[in-house]
């Protein structure tokens, strides 16, 4: 090709400052994932519902506990766990949101556009992890704190035992609730990449987090004692308990076990994302 052939193209490029200095960097991939998250009504709605569930159930449990109908205060290990009673249900919502963030891209075909823009692929997964973890943790921590404070004031107005954030283990339990909710979402995100199918991933994650812990209790107690505390939801639960109950893990061990699940699933997701056809 002669230089005259190149000339018009070169001028074309200098006239276009808007496309200068294009490069894929990790912060830019994070920015892309942030735009994707906030531009869907379904994700913002799911997050709002999660916050509402967390605070709503905290208020509901603190209003009803010990009222003669339903559970008594003795059924809960402590006042903190009453006000964080909505975490289980809220975790269902964050887990689904995690699945939607990853498997949802496969369902709609967006993944091909995404990987064409970021062909090295892995930054896309880490970008999703960062955006989801930060957004979820901040929101869920605020919501858990809100549920705790609102719930404790309800308990106090009903002249029942209350807990304060400065009591031993209480603040850690509130942070633990946010860890549980965020971790459930990350598990959903990883499984979504592994299965690339929204319905399948939701079924698997909901089953593993919420159904298996119930089923495992039907096994002989020697099995149950060995497996039960190490299941992801039970391990995460021990992080948000003020008092360690009988056979459950200590908060530190629980956090470590929960983290191992997340790391292993994300590593598997990374390997398959890199290797498979999109």
């Amino acid at each position, binding site marked *: *090709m002669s230089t005259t*052939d*190149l000339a*018009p*193209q070169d001028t*074309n*490029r200098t006239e*276009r400052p*808007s*496309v200068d*200095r*294009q*490069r*894929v*960097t990790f912060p*830019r*991939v994070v*920015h*892309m*994932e942030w*735009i*994707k998250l906030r*531009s*869907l*009504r*379904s994700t913002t709605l799911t997050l709002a519902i999660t916050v509402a569930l967390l605070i709503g159930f905290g208020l509901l449990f603190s209003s009803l506990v010990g009222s003669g109908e339903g559970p008594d205060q003795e059924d809960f290990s402590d006042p903190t766990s009453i006000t964080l009673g909505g975490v289980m249900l809220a975790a269902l919502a964050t887990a689904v949101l995690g699945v939607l963030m990853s498997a*949802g*891209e496969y369902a*709609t*075909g*967006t*993944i*091909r*556009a*995404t*990987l*064409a*823009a*970021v*062909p*090295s*692929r892995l930054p896309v997964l880490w970008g999703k992890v960062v955006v989801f973890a930060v957004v979820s943790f901040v929101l869920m921590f605020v919501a858990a704190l809100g549920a705790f404070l609102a719930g404790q004031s309800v308990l106090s107005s009903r002249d029942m035992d209350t807990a304060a954030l400065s009591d031993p283990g209480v603040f850690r339990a509130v942070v633990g609730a946010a860890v549980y909710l965020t971790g459930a979402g990350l598990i959903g995100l990883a499984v979504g990449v592994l299965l690339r199918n929204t319905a399948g991933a939701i079924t698997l994650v909901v089953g593993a987090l919420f159904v298996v812990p119930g089923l495992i209790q039907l096994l002989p107690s020697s099995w149950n004692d060995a497996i039960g505390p190490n299941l992801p939801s039970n391990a995460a639960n021990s992080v948000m308990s003020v008092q360690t109950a009988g056979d459950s893990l200590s908060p530190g061990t629980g956090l470590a076990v929960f983290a191992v699940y997340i790391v292993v699933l994300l590593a598997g997701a990374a390997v398959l994302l890199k*290797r*498979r*056809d*999109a």
Partner: protein
Amino acid sequence: MIEVNDLSKRYGDKLAVDALSFSVRPGVVTGFLGPNGAGKSTTMRMIMGLDRPSSGTARINGRPYEQHKAPLQEIGALLEAKSIHPGRSAYQHLLALAASNGIGKRRVLEVIDMVGLTEVARKRAGGFSLGMGQRLGIASALLGDPQVVMLDEPVNGLDPEGVLWIRNLLKGLADQGRTVFVSSHLMTEMALIAEDLIVIGRGRLLSAGLLADFIAGSASRSVRVRSPQAADLRALLLGDGVTVSVSEPGVLDVTGLEAAEIGERAAAAGLVLHELFRQEASLEEAFMELTHDSVEYHATTAEPVTTGRTNR
């Protein structure tokens, strides 16, 4: 510049792309033709790094796509229309893709305007027609002002005005010195815009070169003769390597002889000719002839029969 070297893709025991090698040069529009299932889309996906090759390499501007630091500046591709979440607007979709490559909002608005989607850019893409989805795909291909543009069936679902727009767009991009690689099953469209042509069948390369050479090289080139003594003329001309078909009374299509030779023989025999001219094969005929044996899915009713070849 796209360079494909010994590229293969195997799905189970089926070889979708079989040791394909070709290159696509800048400055012209290159057409990519092949029957359904020939492996065109798979090849394009491997060039984009979306499908992993079983063996071989595909390079864009000298490197595998995933090694480029500014990928959208190297190549923009439309592979499947509607690679977008139906709940997201076209604007947000393009904004997200642009953000990953450090491309600003201004360029996003520019490409939306370029493809004529300004009015619907803020609406949910779920309501887009096929044609609008196609325009959105082209907008995302142009986001990075790329050196190479690769489009899989870009005119699908476009109205005549849209087809004309694509034609001018692709020619314009090629004139700016960019590499333009386009697949289409519309031969007439391809004949209008492409200068180079790559033809594949059953995953294998059948032809690569200038579109004009491809058509000229086709054996279905024939000479049309109109004569009141057609029957005599036919008997006179038939011989080794010469076929004569009668397309209508008094009109013969002759292959295997040049027009001059036919005229001279007719004159020597004292036969009257009313018309004598050479017929160029169409791209479609040349294509059919080449891919006849490599069509993956034959219709059950008949073989693909082309016009002007009634008698073989």
